[in-house]
């Protein structure tokens, strides 16, 4: 049984045409099921790329989310680009972005032609009633998988940061990019102060 963050990772896949096709298909199929915002695709990505395919590990995934969240634009596109670039450079980034963008484009392209039929359709509404609950479960399960190692380490600072961030984001509804950039700056200053002190001690 694996416990804690998923760390053991296979070697980076070879940059073949076949791999690019697999990358495209993976991002395409994940994007097709990303209802309810960017963090849903992050959760799906973890299940597929970290747990199942072993392309990246949990820490890298969290790094990618940090970076994706600290710049403008949809987190789903930003996150895919980071993964694609990491796995196969510029061509990987392009393929991953294309795979992420195409499903919503194709669907919305059709919907825009007759959207009255979709917006009030009771069958689609009923399907969404069930899917919304599953989406919530997926994101909650990924939260739990990522939170457990934090809990097991029993360090005060990470848990305090988690609590403070949760209040800022969920209760006070502070813009997530503001929180992210502020936290990054906090750690930049902390590391620089640490470096200075380390230098003086020697």
């Amino acid at each position, binding site marked *: 049984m694996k416990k804690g963050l998923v760390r053991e990772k296979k070697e980076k896949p070879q940059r073949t045409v076949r791999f690019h096709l697999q990358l495209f298909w993976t991002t395409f199929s994940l994007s097709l099921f990303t209802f309810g915002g960017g*963090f849903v695709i992050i*959760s799906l990505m973890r299940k597929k790329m970290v747990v199942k395919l072993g392309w990246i590990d949990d820490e890298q995934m969290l790094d990618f989310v940090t970076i994706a969240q600290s710049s403008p634009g*949809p987190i789903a596109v930003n996150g895919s680009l980071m993964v694609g670039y990491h796995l196969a450079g510029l061509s990987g980034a392009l393929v991953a972005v294309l795979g992420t963008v195409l499903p919503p484009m194709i669907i919305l392209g059709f919907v825009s032609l007759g959207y009255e039929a979709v917006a009030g359709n009771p069958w689609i509404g009923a399907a969404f009633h069930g899917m919304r*609950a599953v989406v*919530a479960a997926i994101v909650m*399960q990924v939260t739990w998988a990522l939170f457990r190692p934090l809990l097991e380490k029993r360090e005060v600072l990470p848990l305090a940061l*988690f609590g403070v961030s949760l209040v800022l984001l969920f209760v006070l509804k502070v813009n997530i990019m503001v929180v992210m950039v502020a936290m990054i700056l906090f750690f930049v200053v902390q590391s620089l102060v640490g470096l200075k002190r380390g230098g003086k001690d020697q």
Partner: protein
Amino acid sequence: MTTLFSLFYSFFQIGLFSIGGGYAAMPLIKAQAVDIHHWITATEFADLVTIAEMTPGPIAINAATFVGMRVAGVLGAVLATLGNILPSCIIMLILARLYEKYSKQTLLKQILGGVRPVVVAAIFSAGLVLLQLALTSVSQPDLFALVVFAVAFVLLNSKRIPLGPIALLVLGAGVGILHSVLA
């Protein structure tokens, strides 16, 4: 031609300034598509928000495709979407390069490692919002949604039943339809 260019340029601006996720992009999209260019009406915009919530993918891309398609067909949709993702793609490519180059360095490692609990909190916060939505959007109290949520959560944690999230989503849709037929 000018319409195509202003579609591209408007969504380029939206992409550049939509800071902090999909819902931050909504007012920018409304300003560009409804107030400035009159590409769609306020009612159509409200419909667009509903549709964007019901269809997969980032809200900004849904909006770009919808507005582009209405104004100038497939080419309009492609250009609006391209304009929308271009700014973040350029920024992200630079960041991705820097990450690959410096991620082994202790300073960056420390910073990214430090921020990790914040990301977990962000994912949790998104999950709480989704759960709230799932449990209150149809009826209150929504016992059906609660049961689906609980069963899905247990199945996702179970090692014995290897159901992936996509399979579960399809099952969830099926159960939802079944529920509405029986109820």
